């Protein structure tokens, strides 16, 4: 067990190194990606600023609270992004072109084999840094003084959020085993996840229910932020259950998918 874990850790570090090495070869790509991302976060922050010029609070959330939420939402997203970007390729073309086979002929877990092709995706790093800066700045503006429990739980909240992002992405990417390509549904799910960057209170109850119980992105940002900002644990207790449920569902679909993989063509 520990030997297997150590083996995968060693492999991850090595393949992560390869990923960083590759980065050097595609520097322009990196700069463009990072630039586009900064523009996006900049616009989001500006929109929030504009809105709060007109009103003092939105859905009971102050300006800095919304920025805190916006920043926090980037952390699990960035962590997920850092390791699972290759899932987009699965949804886009790996099944369609029959290329997925190469993960089934290696003596490592196929999911690891797939993800490791793009470990340490730099966009994720950018999200983590920008997210952390926003969270700490907004937190200090709010005069936030987290309890020991909140400090201790914060990294776990980010980790669970990342797992939820990964699970949703894996679920929709795995649909490609049935539908050949599942990029549109993956893209739609990502669009929905953007809603989680703002307070749920401003949305219609149906959208709120969708974000909480169907595509549980609320648990990646809104629920943890409510806890960190107010100490309210109402929905927080569901976080482990939702995370486990999402991950297990996605893995089950993935497993069924690879067993029905038909490598088309000769």
């Amino acid at each position, binding site marked *: 067990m520990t030997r297997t874990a150590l083996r995968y850790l060693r492999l991850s570090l*090595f393949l992560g190194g*390869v990923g960083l090495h590759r980065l050097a070869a595609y520097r322009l790509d990196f700069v463009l990606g990072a630039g586009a991302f900064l523009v996006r976060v900049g616009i989001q922050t500006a929109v929030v600023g504009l809105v709060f010029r007109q009103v003092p609070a939105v859905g009971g959330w102050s300006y800095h609270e919304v920025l805190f939420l916006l920043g926090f939402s980037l952390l699990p997203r960035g962590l997920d992004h850092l390791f699972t970007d290759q899932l987009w390729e699965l949804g886009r073309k790996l099944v369609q*072109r029959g290329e997925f086979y190469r993960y089934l002929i290696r003596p490592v*877990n196929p999911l690891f084999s797939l993800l490791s092709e793009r470990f340490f995706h730099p966009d994720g790093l950018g999200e983590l840094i920008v997210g952390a800066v926003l969270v700490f700045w907004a937190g200090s503006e709010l005069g936030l003084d987290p309890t020991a429990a909140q400090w201790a739980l914060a990294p776990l909240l980010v980790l669970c959020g990342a797992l939820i992002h990964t699970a949703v992405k894996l679920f929709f990417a795995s649909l490609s085993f049935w539908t050949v390509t599942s990029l549109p549904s993956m893209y739609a799910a990502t669009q929905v996840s953007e809603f989680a960057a703002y307070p749920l209170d401003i949305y219609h109850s149906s959208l709120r229910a969708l974000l909480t119980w169907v595509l549980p992105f609320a648990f990646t940002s809104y629920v943890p932020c409510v806890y960190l900002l107010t100490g309210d644990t109402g929905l927080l207790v569901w976080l482990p259950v939702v995370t486990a449920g999402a991950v297990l569902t996605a893995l089950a679909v993935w497993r069924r998918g690879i067993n029905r993989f038909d490598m088309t*063509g000769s």
Partner: protein
Amino acid sequence: MTGSPPVIVAENLTKEFRVAERGPGLLGALATLFTREHRIVRAVDGVSFEIPAGSRTAYIGANGAGKSTTIKMLTGIMTPTSGRCLVAGIEPYRERQRNARSIGVVFGQRSQLWWDLSVPDSFRILRRIYDIPEPVYRRNLRLYRELLDIDALGTTPVRQLSLGQRMRAEIAASLLHDPAVVFWDEPTIGLDMVLKEAVRVLVNRANQELGTTVVLTSHDIGDIAAICDSALVVDRGRVVHQGTIQDLLRTADRRSVTFDHRDPLPLPAACEEIERGLPGVRASEDDGGRIRVDYPVAAFTSRQVLAFLLDRFDLADCYAPEPDLEDVLRRVYERDATESASPDQPAAPVESGAA
């Protein structure tokens, strides 16, 4: 080769695909969105065979016999609809990771390398993934340097390599971890004579030093002849020939002799004379003013044909080429078709298709 225990066993291996039934044109395409009509295509139909350890076997079948599909089940990529197979004692699609350690794979159409990395980088990753011991890794790299000129590929990313260059890398990658069995599905090596020779040497060494088993599918008779010592011919699920390639060629029902002669006789007259002297034989003009004589093995021995030619002509040169493998296969399939066309056999409700 009968002495070696089988390293690959297939028992009633069957694979069916569901194909959406689609009408012609745009309307037909739209209709598939709303109907659930499917046609079952049976790509592999109850195939059983054994491949002895240490053999270099060409897996031969008619187009649409499901050769590639069979290889995909033997490598664990696809799960059979029914039946099963064992490779080195493992059911590949049930234990993919364990199976992966004992096999190497090349699919000529699709690369298994990291498309944006160089070949040396890819090999370094493979070394880690397969836990290849340092001495083995070094030994194999040295071999590839020597035989495949791997160094010449340098730091070029795989996606920028030519087909021949990429094939060198794929072949090397499939052997890097000293697998017990390698599966090569339509590797394109025939275009490159140097590569073909190198692969032949490589396979011979792996075969002799490590007992590596090679399974090859190819449309290129040259590839088959260069790499394989035995042939497994499958037709409609049944093994119709298993043995050396020489044995297979010996089943040819027609052979030919081509010759040059120094007689002043014009070619048409010479051909006529041969056909008159040896009834059932066909004589025709070949390239460069030579005469080609095709004779049925059942009616004449090569000795009789040659004796006749030596007697009538002043031979300058003479060739008796190997029978054409395509010809041989056509005959094998035809013979099998007439034998199996018994009335108690139900008309197959499924179509077999290429996969």
